[in-house]
């Protein structure tokens, strides 16, 4: 992930973002029942998609590490998980702010928000677990096992919490995909810049992992002298 590609990603993301903001704020009419607050969806939903993409990539990288035993996969797994967590946090906060207006309360046990919170806890546990292990090879193995477990757990969390909520009906953040096409286009269009930003951040984090390995090699060399 050389400097050039990172900069390219960021500039393209910025341009697309500017265009999307223009369309979002000035072109699209207010959603009839929710008013301007509705526009948060253009960041709330794509962030959730980016977060899940990150967690899925982490699971794939973890399986590849266990098969190939190459620490580069482990570095990729931690990079995408961290970026996924950042976007999950964005999803949670935007969801809460949106809920504040629609129901006047900060937190509702809405199925999607709750599931995202559980996912956030899961992968925060992953980072904490990595932090507790010093030896790189052991850390990669333990983290890979937990990442696979967490990724299998994510869909189960979503189903169980949706069932939990449908048993005690509660206002739902989104009534399903009944938006008209103009919104859908912007929604997808706005996902691209977020993806590009996510990829850039993951690239930087990946490079830092590689530099960390070089650092440890240097430290060993220094001790050896």
């Amino acid at each position: 992930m050389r400097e050039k590609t990172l900069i390219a990603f960021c500039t393209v993301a910025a341009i697309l973002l500017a265009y999307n903001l223009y369309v979002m704020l000035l072109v699209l009419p207010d959603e009839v029942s929710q008013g301007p607050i509705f526009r948060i969806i253009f960041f709330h939903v794509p962030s959730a998609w980016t977060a899940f993409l990150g967690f899925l990539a982490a699971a794939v990288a973890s399986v590849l590490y266990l098969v190939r035993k190459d620490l580069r996969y482990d570095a990729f797994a931690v990079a995408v998980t961290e970026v996924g967590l950042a976007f999950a946090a964005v999803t949670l906060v935007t969801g809460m702010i949106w809920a504040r207006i629609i129901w006047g309360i900060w937190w509702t046990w809405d199925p999607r928000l709750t599931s995202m919170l559980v996912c956030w806890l899961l992968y925060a546990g992953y980072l904490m677990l990595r932090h507790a292990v010093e030896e790189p090879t052991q850390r990669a193995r333990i983290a890979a096992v937990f990442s696979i477990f967490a990724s299998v757990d994510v869909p189960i969390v979503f189903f169980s919490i949706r069932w939990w909520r449908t048993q005690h009906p509660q206002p739902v953040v989104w009534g399903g995909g009944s938006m008209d096409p103009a919104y859908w286009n912007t929604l997808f269009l706005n996902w691209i810049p977020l993806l590009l930003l996510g990829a850039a951040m993951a690239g930087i984090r990946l490079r830092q992992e590689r530099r960390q390995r070089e650092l440890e090699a240097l430290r060993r060399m220094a001790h050896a002298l």
Partner: protein
Amino acid sequence: MNALELDQVWKFYGDFPALRQISFELPEGVCLALLGRNGAGKTTLLRILSGLMRPGRGSVRVLGADPRDTMARARIGVLGHGLALYDELSALENLTLFARLYALKDPRGAAGQWLERVGLAASASSLVREFSRGMRQRLAVARAFLHEPELLLLDEPFTALDDRAVTTLQDLLRDAVRQGRTVVLSTHQLREALELATHVALLVRGRLAYYGTRTNEMLEDPAWLYRRYGEAA
């Protein structure tokens, strides 16, 4: 059939190569002394041979099979630093547990027989917690020999042994080699090891600095090996 066959074995902790390009073959019915300073990779190599760890690269064959193969491990006896005894269980219970894990026909019988051989029959039912260091050592040796293993992997077996225990262990190992079993022991106590060893392997910073039969001048002056090959790596 060779007891051990290692080909280009590497083991990494992150990027640090704990073992570098280890290749050697050990015939059956011999005693290999694995020498080297602390951190040279002796324990790592023994852990790979006893199936506790996988090599990073290269292939390892133990008794003709993969170290993690259950049938191979049933014919290997392991004695590590920690003696692997449960303080809250009695001596007999400890041995019976491992006899059952090694799927011996008569677990209690084998356990009782080995308690006599190491002179612990009297305290068979007392808890290991009350055992002295020497008694624990003897019980651990019994656990390692319990299932008549064809290959014995011993990590610094002579440390913290009183002289009586050293001689009993040496006799046991000598009998084992005479019965055609293979013994691999890693140690610092050069004299005790070199008396027993038919082969010697010297590890220096993860590399195999010397591997071959034990020659007589090694016996007269154990430090000769370290001087001659010690800093070669």
